[in-house]
């Protein structure tokens, strides 16, 4: 310590306050050795710090001075308003027309504690909004609660008017509401939603889970224009013949897409549980019932096309095959007789043309019970069809397949099918023999499912000719859609009531396909309990009810579908659609 004092240069500083000497003390001995060992360590540490700072500086330059060299981290992105919670997806038709949408609608509520003059507010509200009771509103406003609903789901105009009043204590709550602009036109297809936007019928129910929380709309295979035309024509025939109801279906035979589907009576999806003022006799359940997919019917003679097809395809008979339809068949307590019979031996084309029950029963017998069931299974007529709806019916057929069942099923009695299945299987008969599942969703171009082959292409070709013959010379003459080469089959069945057939209650149907030269579309119309009228000369059979309706529909929809009319009498078309065995022969008209 004594040596340090010599270096102090300030003479005035009191001695005892002198700081310790500042000159470096150079230790020696063990201390010097220790210090020498520290130096490299210090150097390493400094280097480490320098590197760390250089890295940080480099990073700073990269982040701030070189734009775009790095991606901005997510956390820094500014998201001022969260996207609105996805509502229910829209439903559109195949051309993008809006069939169902979700709209926000304001609902008016009040906070009575903030209301200044309840009587005045009630007065003004009642004057502005229709359907309010002044006393009720006043009672609500003076209830002293914190929240009372005044009116739910106002129209935009009403909301504007209430805002214009400028009254304190009134507030809007935004709620969502499903809107169906076309009303009853698509009731059974689109269906409707109930409280809390639960799908309760149709596509709304069938695709409920995929409609929820989805942004892009669901596109159906339905074509609104076709739907309207079919609806109008079906309603007309149901009205004209004071029928109980009807079902109609337009299907693309090559893809299985359903272009129109109508079931009458129908309902308004906006208020499904009210009665129709024009037809108070229709119950709500009856109007909700989808006759196309849920109802199963003994379709009658239309079923004969399947029997004929399986007869031809299995080799049990051929286009030149003949069966004796001279006398009715008596089996057990049943008698099978003909309605339009010629009472003679008939060829296979004649049996279908004149819709001979006896002939078809004999074809069915020739096919046999096992092969008949096998073919029906292949046509999809023994199990429930698949569709995007939940309202799907099952076919009904006898558990025990006796000989009499073989015969009656041959002409369409004793087995009940949904019109949807008849259309799908009918498509397979004419499109070259491929069965494709029906669908209500639009398929992309060329996106038709592979399908399964149910009959040979040759049999399908025969079926086209036969269906054309039915319209030209047989029971389908009333179709009357010249130029579109329509083929089809009528069916008039007695309805089952309890355990018996009701004599005067008919189910008339017609399955039409056009153009038969290269089938594209199938139109099925079914009329439930038509009553004869004057214009039909006392008939209510399919030839007078369903067939003309199909004809009118085809004439109207064909231009929309791009099907061009042709000269039906041109030799090439006649040649192509006349069975070889009948070419050049005089055909006895029905």
């Amino acid at each position, binding site marked *: 310590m004594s040596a340090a004092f010599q270096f102090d240069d300030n003479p005035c500083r009191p001695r005892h306050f002198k700081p310790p000497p500042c000159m470096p003390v150079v230790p020696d001995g063990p201390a010097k050795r220790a210090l020498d060992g520290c130096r490299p360590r210090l150097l390493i540490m400094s280097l480490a710090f320098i590197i760390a700072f250089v890295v940080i500086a480099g990073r700073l330059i990269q982040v701030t001075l070189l734009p775009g060299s790095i991606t901005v981290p997510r956390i820094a992105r500014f998201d001022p308003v969260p996207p609105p919670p996805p509502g229910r997806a829209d439903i559109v038709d195949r051309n993008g027309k809006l069939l169902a949408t979700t709209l926000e609608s304001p609902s008016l509520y009040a906070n009575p504690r903030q209301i200044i003059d309840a009587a005045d507010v009630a007065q003004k509200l009642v004057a502005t909004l229709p359907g309010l009771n002044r006393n009720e509103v006043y009672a609500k406003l003076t209830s002293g609660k914190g929240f009372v609903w005044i009116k*739910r*789901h106002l129209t935009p*105009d009403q909301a504007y008017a209430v805002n214009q009043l400028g009254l304190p204590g009134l507030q809007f709550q935004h709620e969502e*509401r499903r*809107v169906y*602009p*076309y009303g009853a036109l698509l009731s059974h297809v689109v269906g409707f939603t109930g409280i809390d936007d639960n799908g309760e019928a149709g596509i709304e129910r069938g695709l409920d889970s995929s409609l929820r929380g989805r942004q892009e709309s669901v596109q159906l295979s339905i074509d609104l224009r076709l739907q309207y035309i079919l609806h109008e024509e079906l309603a007309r025939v149901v009205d004209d013949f004071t029928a109980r109801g009807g079902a109609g279906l337009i299907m693309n035979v090559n893809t299985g897409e359903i272009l129109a589907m109508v079931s009458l009576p129908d309902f308004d999806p906006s208020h499904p*549980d009210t009665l129709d003022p024009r037809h108070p006799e229709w119950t709500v359940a009856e109007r909700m019932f989808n006759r196309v997919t849920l109802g199963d019917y003994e379709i009658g003679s239309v079923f004969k096309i399947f029997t004929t097809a399986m007869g031809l395809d299995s080799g049990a008979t051929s286009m030149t095959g003949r069966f004796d339809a001279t006398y009715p068949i008596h089996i057990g307590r049943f008698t099978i007789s003909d309605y339009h019979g010629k009472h003679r031996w008939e060829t296979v084309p004649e049996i279908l043309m004149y819709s001979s029950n006896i002939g078809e029963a004999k074809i069915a017998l020739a096919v046999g019970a096992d092969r008949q069931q096998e073919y029906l299974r292949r046509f999809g007529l023994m199990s429930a069809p698949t569709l995007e709806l939940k309202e799907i019916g099952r076919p009904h057929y006898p558990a025990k397949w006796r000989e009499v069942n073989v015969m009656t099923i041959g002409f369409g009695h004793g087995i009940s099918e949904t019109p949807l299945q008849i259309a799908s299987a009918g498509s397979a008969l004419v499109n070259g023999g491929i069965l494709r599942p029906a669908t209500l969703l639009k398929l992309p171009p060329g996106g038709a499912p592979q399908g399964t082959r149910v009959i040979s292409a040759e049999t399908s070709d025969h079926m086209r000719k036969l269906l054309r013959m039915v319209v030209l010379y047989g029971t389908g003459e009333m179709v009357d859609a010249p130029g579109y080469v329509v083929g089809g089959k009528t069916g008039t069945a007695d309805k089952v009531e309890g355990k018996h057939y009701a004599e005067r209650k008919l189910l008339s149907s017609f399955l039409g396909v056009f153009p038969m030269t290269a089938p594209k579309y199938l139109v099925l119309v079914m009329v439930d309990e038509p009553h004869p009228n004057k214009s039909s000369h006392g008939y209510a059979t399919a030839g007078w009810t369903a067939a003309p309706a199909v004809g009118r529909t085809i004439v*109207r929809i064909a*231009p929309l579908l791009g099907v061009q009319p042709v000269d039906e009498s041109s030799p090439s078309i006649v040649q192509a659609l006349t069975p070889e065995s009948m070419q050049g022969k005089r055909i006895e008209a029905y």
Partner: protein
Amino acid sequence: MIRLPTLFWLIIVATTGFAMFAIKYQVQGLADRLTRTVKQADDVERDIRVLDAEWAYLNRPDALAQMNQRFLSLVPIATKQLRTSVADIPMRPAPPPLPPPPPPVVTVAATAPTPDAATIPAGNSTPPAVAPPDAPAQVRLDEPVSAVATESPNPVATTPHEKRIAAAPARPTAVKTASRQAPTHRAASLNELIAQITESR
């Protein structure tokens, strides 16, 4: 006295401080604008949804059919009116010599009044509901018809002038009435629709 380095640092601090606040307020302003714009876009989207629904409602086929009956009296194309190729259309017979140049042939597609047709005074007021005797057939206004649609060739071929004059007075009146009618009907209709829906639930 402030030394030079101190001054330097003071200026640096002041500048950065100012810059930071300036940027902060700028960002806040932008964020507000963004919020407003997003909300506006949202409102517009909601309006579009309502208008879409309204458009669909106003274009119900039955409503269009009714309006057609009142104003246009168009009927579906008859099969014989459809021609599938240009070759099917017969040639027009040589027109009788007339001083004015031949008027444009009124085709089916041209249901909207051409300015040409509109200028003709509608003196002889044909009631709008009555169709001109040879009214061109059309399925619906907005529906594309894929087949080539032409009129039955005869009326066009023989009397193009009579046709034009007969068709002209009815057209503009009809369309004008329709456009006058539309707004009031539109306002009432969606309200009605929503009101109906509301009452049902």
